[in-house]
């Protein structure tokens, strides 16, 4: 039976070439663009390297010093009790605004008060956004650096191609060592082999290259630096402040506990930090952390809400509604086309029904045909997507982002294609299956 369906579907494709073209154009383009978007989300937010532990991450990238102001509002009501006037006053205390100072934190505060939370397996502190200008034969190379500690390498799962990462001893001694990405190696040394052991001149100081990791172009933070150095060799000014500094803190939660629990612990830890240090800026009374999971950090870039989970919720809905808008139109288009096309085959349906085919058989046949057509379109779409992805990667159209083609990507693309085929085929098929035999056969064209 399947082979019959296949044969029929194939014949139908060839029967009206213009319609087949319109359908395939719509299908392949829609699916192609969906696949590019999928690939983008997958390579940015999937749990592929170096973000293998992404789902266990909780980030604290901000320390907030704040003071809330309150207004006391006195309301007076008059009422008559026993024909005597009685005043009834109510007090309401309302927040009338707040003063906030958000900045990254001092590493000392993180290491002292956040380092052994019960739900956290590991913690790393690092400075993310400094830059080095280096000159090679008069050409400038901008290097984005990350100054981290030893735990950084455990949390961010970089693929080490050559050499090794810095260890505890080197970190403590502030050894002048650097781990670089293969992209940096190519830009700086002109080669990716045998760079380990060479010297690199950063800000007038010689650093020894001890390792090389693979560069994954990603927009998401913390994972695509050009060079990684121990933060003990960073020239830090402003270290006299106990509270604010340059550091971001990243936690990996223990398996089995929820990230909400870890977030609660971090929020609680904030309240244990003393507020009487002499470096505290005047007028601030409270200290707050605003922990977020890794996805929530990404969502905050799309739509910022101070409550990170709310950000994620809103960003999710923005994405879902945009995507569904984008899918609904081509689906409707295909349904419209199919509804008119299928009319052509009323006599065929009539004959099949007259010979005892059930409604279900007919629906199955048409949906099958449509799915087959969609899969064909999906295949063309895949080609288009691969082409577009190559083009985007090559042109650097999206700054610093490299889209990947992973096995998961193909799986998701296939599922999306299938869904699209079933959705757009079902309505016309059901409509046709309801056709009365008499009416169907009356148009005696076969």
């Amino acid at each position: 039976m399947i082979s019959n369906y296949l044969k029929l579907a194939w014949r139908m494709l060839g029967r009206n070439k213009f319609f087949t073209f319109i359908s395939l154009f719509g299908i392949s383009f829609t699916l192609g663009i969906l696949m590019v978007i999928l690939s983008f989300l997958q390579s940015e937010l999937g749990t592929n390297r170096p973000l293998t532990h992404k789902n266990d991450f909780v980030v604290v990238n901000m320390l907030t010093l704040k003071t809330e102001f309150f207004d006391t509002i006195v309301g007076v009501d008059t009422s008559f009790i026993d024909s005597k006037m009685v005043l009834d006053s109510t007090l309401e205390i309302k927040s009338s605004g707040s003063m906030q100072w958000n900045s990254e934190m001092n590493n000392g505060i993180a290491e002292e008060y956040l380092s052994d939370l019960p739900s956290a397996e590991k913690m790393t502190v690092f400075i993310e956004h400094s830059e080095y200008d280096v000159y090679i034969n008069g050409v400038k190379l901008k290097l984005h650096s990350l100054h981290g500690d030893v735990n950084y390498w455990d949390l961010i799962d970089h693929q080490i191609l050559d050499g090794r990462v810095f260890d505890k001893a080197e970190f403590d001694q502030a050894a002048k060592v650097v781990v670089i990405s293969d992209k940096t190696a190519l830009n700086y040394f002109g080669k990716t082999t045998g760079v380990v052991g060479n010297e690199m001149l950063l800000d007038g100081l010689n650093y020894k290259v001890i390792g090389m990791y693979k560069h994954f172009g990603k927009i998401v933070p913390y994972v695509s630096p050009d060079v990684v150095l121990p933060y003990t060799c960073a020239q830090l000014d402003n270290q006299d402040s106990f509270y604010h500094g340059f550091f971001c803190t990243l936690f990996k939660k223990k398996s089995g506990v929820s990230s909400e629990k870890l977030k609660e612990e971090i929020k609680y830890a904030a309240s244990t930090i003393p507020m009487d240090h002499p470096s505290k800026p005047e007028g601030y009374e409270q200290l707050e952390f605003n922990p977020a999971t890794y996805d929530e950090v990404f969502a905050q870039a799309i739509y910022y809400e101070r409550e990170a989970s709310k950000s994620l919720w809103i960003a999710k809905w923005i994405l879902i509604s945009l995507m569904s808008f984008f899918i609904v139109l081509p689906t409707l288009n295909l349904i419209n086309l199919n509804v008119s096309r299928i009319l052509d085959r009323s006599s065929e349906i009539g004959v099949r029904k007259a010979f005892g085919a059930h409604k279900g058989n007919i629906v199955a046949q048409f949906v099958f045909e449509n799915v087959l057509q969609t899969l064909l379109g999906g295949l063309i779409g895949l080609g288009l997507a691969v082409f577009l992805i190559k083009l985007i990667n090559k042109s650097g159209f999206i700054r610093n982002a490299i889209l990947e083609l992973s096995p998961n990507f193909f799986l998701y693309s296939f599922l999306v294609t299938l869904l699209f085929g079933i959705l757009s085929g079902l309505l016309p098929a059901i409509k046709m299956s309801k056709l009365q035999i008499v009416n169907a056969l009356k148009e005696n064209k076969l």
Partner: protein
Amino acid sequence: MIKHVFKLLWNKKGSNALMALEIFLSFIVLFFVLSYLFFNLDRVNQTLGFETENVWMIEMDAIDKLDSLEAVTTLQNLKRNLINLKEIESVSFTESIAPFKGNQWRTGTDDNGFNMNTLMCPVDTDLLATVGLNVVQGRWYTEEDLNETIKPIVVNQAFIDRYYPDKSMIDSIFILNGDRRLIGVIDEYRYIGEFADSEPTVMELTDYFQNMGNVLLKMKGDIPTSFEEELYNLTNTTIKSTSNTITTLEYERAKDSNESWVLIVALLFICGFLCINVALGLFGVLWYNINKRRSEIGLRQALGAHSIDITKQFILEILLLTLLAVGLGIFFAIQIPLLKVTEYPDSLFYRSILFSTLIIFLLVITCALFPSVQAARISPADSLHED
């Protein structure tokens, strides 16, 4: 005629409803995309108020590590050294608030009897020449202004338009972190970026002090980037620190607006594709449906209808359907400016509605024309013979 067309539409309400839904959704998508596009283009088309061509920028991290006296002498040394270079025309120092850096400083006061909120921008006297500001009223700062008891102040046109639209404010005094005397108005200084809104901005003259960590340089003509290394070394030796970076405003501008452009191009690309897709779909459906009605056409022709009448009828049918769908779309879209859902200007949404409507009708008419003309060519002998 219209009544007749309505009846024809109603007879096939099922498939017509689907088609109307598709047109309606296309309208909504177009409306949002165009609103977004117009919104951003309006901003890009406004003047930045300054030039980015041949302007370089040095960012120095280490300045705030020095004590204030040392910082001032170091900065003055640096300025002297830079201005002596034959490639450099003009040098201006700013704080961390520099073009495209993403830093902002806002302040507000109600001391003047109304709420005044502005962007603040610390500047020196050389900024005018370095980035080419445009003074539209009054004058720019001179060195003497630093010694005035009532501090002079220069604002942008947006500030005047919002807070003092009626009269010339030159030499008037108002309160903004103390008494300030307005001496000049520049047209604009949108340092946040090309996609930033035009906001009231106050340029405040500042003396050399510790935090002046950004240097803007106007170069003499198009200096090759190889000069950067020389500049880098000179800066390093003068301020005795190596953590400096050099960049050009052109580069920073491109970097800053890249994200917005990526989104705009991607949206336009997707929207364009949706339009083509819908157009092709409509064309297919119309062509098909009209072919299904050959006998009706034949009959009308046999009864004396001209071919132009046939075409007219089909076009009218599809136009009516579109009108219904777009009317529904306009009903929803117009709620946004009417109910003041957003703070953006109403004209933006009216423009988008107008253009979306035009595009949809253009698309539909183009798609309907060919099948309708084709239909009119059907000869009654052929079409009636079939039935």
